[in-house]
């Protein structure tokens, strides 16, 4: 088959984005149906908080998967879907926090400051959400252009978020740690794929190759 035919076109990108919107929205519709049909367990509040949190985490995995996929299959245009998926991470995280404030804390701000700050897992999650908010607010093309090189620097925070959120998850559970650990592994893998792009790795490999040459050049 001709390789050219496999290239993503801007037309197919349009449809791909449409599909991604469907994948992003369907779980929300499903959740609404579950809650309306009384299928979200005896405590729908906890269910919704957990569901939207896991949704944000899954979207985060999807975001981080895009550039390795684009590289592997040489589909540069695919990178243009990162903003869309990234904003779904923000949307799910926002729903997660909104559900926590409205359904669990019932907007008791006093309670929030009194007792919630005692919960380190919430502080870690909140830090992740603040970073995520910064990324969402700077996701517009105009802001991107204005920020120039600083934009990329800021948006590298997604890697920090990728570590903070599984910590938040791991810390929040009583002892059912399999799932948080799976996310740690997935994030580790996704970050590991990027290791070669880091300055640290490049310097390390330069050093190694220099050392290799020295050893070889010894009589």
């Amino acid at each position, binding site marked *: 088959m001709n390789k050219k035919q496999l290239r993503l076109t801007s037309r197919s990108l349009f449809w791909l984005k449409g599909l991604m919107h469907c994948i992003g929205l369907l779980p929300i519709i499903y959740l609404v149906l*579950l809650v309306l049909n009384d299928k979200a367990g005896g*405590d729908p509040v906890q269910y919704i908080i957990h569901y939207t949190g896991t949704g944000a985490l899954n979207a985060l995995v999807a975001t981080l998967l895009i550039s390795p996929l684009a590289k592997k299959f040489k589909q540069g245009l695919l990178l243009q879907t990162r903003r869309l998926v990234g904003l779904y991470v923000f949307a799910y995280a926002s729903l997660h926090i909104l559900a926590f404030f409205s359904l669990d804390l019932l907007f008791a701000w006093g309670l929030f400051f009194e007792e919630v700050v005692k919960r380190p*897992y919430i502080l870690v999650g909140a830090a992740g959400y603040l970073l995520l908010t910064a990324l969402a607010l700077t996701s517009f093309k105009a802001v991107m252009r204005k920020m120039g090189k600083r934009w990329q620097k800021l948006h590298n925070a997604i890697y920090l978020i990728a570590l903070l959120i599984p910590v938040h998850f791991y810390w929040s559970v009583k002892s059912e740690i399999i799932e948080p650990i*799976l996310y740690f592994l997935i994030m580790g893998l996704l970050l590991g794929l990027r290791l070669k792009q880091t300055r640290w790795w490049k310097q390390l490999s330069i050093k190694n190759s220099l050392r290799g040459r020295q050893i070889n050049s010894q009589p």
Partner: protein
Amino acid sequence: MTIINKAAWDKFKDCDVTPEEVYHDRRRILKQMGFVGAGALLSSRANAGVFDLFSSEEEKAAFARVALPHAKQTEYDHLLYGEQTPENKVISHNNFYEFGTSKTDPVDNAQGLTVNPWQLVIDGEVDTPLTLDYDDILKMLPLEERIYNFRCVEAWSMVIPWVGFSLAKLLKKAGVKSNATHVAFETLYDPEQMPGQKNRYSGGGINYPYVEGLTLAEAMTDLTFMSVGLYGKTLPPQNGAPIRLVVPWKYGFKSIKSIVRIHVTDKQPRSSWNLLAPSEYGFYANVNPQVDHPRWSQASERRIAAGGLFSAKRIPTLPFNGYGDLVSGLYDGLNLRKNF
């Protein structure tokens, strides 16, 4: 690679080539084989929901519960704070890691538990060790209904009408020896029936069987209850059928379920959550709004009550879950911050 043409493929339906019991049990089998994503591990209930909503797959038959004749005991009703939690919520929101770690796993996975025949052994420092079968459990002592506050260590709570008898009455039948100081309890260990016991990590890291314990004074207090039913009927398995402990002034994990052994002893018994995380769960585990869990506050609780999503309430947690007048005397001279 074999190429299957469409005609040949169409000849067979899934159910033709799969033994029926495997077909109906496929989700559990897939789970056991480990073919689940991180998301699916989270809630088998959600997956079941897809089928409920969008096709007509039957749910597994629910465990059959029988009505229990009982008298109403209202002596402790004035200590209740809040309306009763509706039955459907009491039996669908459970922590019973033997059947999975999510709140909806027990109702999904426990319906097939065999409770008859059952054997409950009462032994150790007693005059006459007893072995009770299923009928003995339900008929040996007159049953009464008691409505108790129930507070989980995870900061949610319910108000539940239990049916059963006080533990003290049962222990008196066996006759507690004078050197006894504590009572130990043990849940059924049966990995065939309890999938969470198959692998230590699928069961939340607990080293099964689940064990719990009380001091003898705690065990002999009338408030300490052996429940065989709720809402006038026998317990469903997810709530600890056929017999469980209910200690309303302690966090829910002390109220051990599906008990097979009560061992009267002269040593402080081990307890499962304390063994797993001693810095987070103490032996006493009395409800105490002043002593936080290391990772979250215990000052308030979300009350699971009647009504939909927006009727949830957050209420302050009371010392000893509201039963302080009756039980605080058991801890005179004990530092409850240290002995949490």
